[in-house]
């Protein structure tokens, strides 16, 4: 599969940046800069009921632009209604000035001409946003776009897996894809929110943690949940309880 080749190549790149450490979001960001070829990058997260927080910025300008967007409440990737990426090939375009009257001129003053904002999300689970800044205007080429989308998904997966209770990362482990094409993973997430009385983010974290702990594929575990062979019970340590099918 082409997708597997791309994932393998990018994961290797991410792992190289980690230099043997446990892979973190900053390593994904470093991989984005080299694979996608952008000048700067920032990742901001918004966990439940907390304000936006910049988790990573490649440099001072990226940090300042990210903080500016949060302060003035406008900028690519901050539109609460946007359900997908916001790709801006040229911030000096009239429509950009109209849309972001404070952010766009400030970014241009700082030497940024293109911004590509990728939400870190899985359906209703919205963890944050990854902003790519570039000094020259222009769209992302198709392959670079594919790499950026895949790496944004990887960052999303890492954020979900880092949040799992008591889970220490297995070194070099390739996290299960967050925006998986298997619908049963998303259906199971919804079912677990009801079973445990938790948010969709927590439900997805728990589902993924269960799959890792039992060394099973995420969509196989999800298939068991959907078929009602496996239930997540709110009780002891939240351990899922396997029931005969």
């Amino acid at each position: 599969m082409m997708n597997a080749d791309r994932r393998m190549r990018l994961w290797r790149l991410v792992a190289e940046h980690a230099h043997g450490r446990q892979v973190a979001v900053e390593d994904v960001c470093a991989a984005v800069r080299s694979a996608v070829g952008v000048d700067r990058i920032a990742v901001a997260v918004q966990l439940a009921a907390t304000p936006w927080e910049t988790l990573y910025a490649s440099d001072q300008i990226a940090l300042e632009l990210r903080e500016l967007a949060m302060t003035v409440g406008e900028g690519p990737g901050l539109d609460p209604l946007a359900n997908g990426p916001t790709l801006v090939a040229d911030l000096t375009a009239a429509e950009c000035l109209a849309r972001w009257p404070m952010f766009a001129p400030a970014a241009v003053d700082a030497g940024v001409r293109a911004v590509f904002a990728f939400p870190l999300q899985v359906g209703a689970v919205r963890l944050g946003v990854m902003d790519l800044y570039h000094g020259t205007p222009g769209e992302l080429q198709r392959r670079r776009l594919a790499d950026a989308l895949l790496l944004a998904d990887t960052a999303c997966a890492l954020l979900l897996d880092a949040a799992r209770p008591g889970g220490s990362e297995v070194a070099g482990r390739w996290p299960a894809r967050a925006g998986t094409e298997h619908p049963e993973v998303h259906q199971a997430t919804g079912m677990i929110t009801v079973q445990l009385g938790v948010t969709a983010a927590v439900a997805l974290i728990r589902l993924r943690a269960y799959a890792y702990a039992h060394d099973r594929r995420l969509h196989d575990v999800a298939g068991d949940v959907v078929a009602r062979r496996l239930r997540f019970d709110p009780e002891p340590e939240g351990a899922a309880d396997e029931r005969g099918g």
Partner: protein
Amino acid sequence: MPGVNEMAEVQLADVFVEMADTLVDEFDVIDFLHVLTQRCVQLLGVSAAGLLLTDQQDTLQVVAASSERTRLLELFQLQTDQGPCVDCFRTGQPVSVADLTAAGRWPGFAVAAAEVGFASVHALPMRLRTEVIGALNFFDTSRGPLDGDKVRIGQALADVATIGLLQQRAIHRRDVLTEQLQTALNSRVLIEQAKGVLAERLQLDMDKAFMVLRSEARNRNRRLSELAKAIVDGSERISEASDADHSG
């Protein structure tokens, strides 16, 4: 299968008018594509229709189907590895398999399709100028090709689906296409999550859960994906009473 000549032309015209009307209003793209797949089934006399879009990372993802039966969705999705649909997507050309038992090219897919009772499969590309963005996929329980008129109607519906996906925005840049494709894919994930919430809360199967979600969205005059989001984050609920009212 009835031929196109026997098919009421009025019906055909009605479908295109319905689709055009939908595009004028503020509409939900997933709901639009769901209705479109249902109309494919009616107009083309096939058993099931599904619509798959590229996630721009080399994988096709199911965004709408004429029926939300889990096994049917799985069968559509299975083709992202091998099958007529992925071949259609990669070549940008229609792929038609009149008899799956005689098609040795996709052994895994052919077996899975036979298990669900399908004998033939057809796939038509969704194109935007030079770019292929997905495919419209049909299954039928009887063998046989899709005749020329039906291929033309199916391709017209695939083109309407592409237009609907772009939602009246001028697609002169790939950026806009990407934004719309990724939004549609995330909306689909939202809907799957909401189906899960409803399936668990109301003890329904996934097919029923989708019907409840969809009829509630219509009753409340809400976009499907907005209501789905509200259900997943718990800000809105659908009671069992609504299930009894609309599950039919």
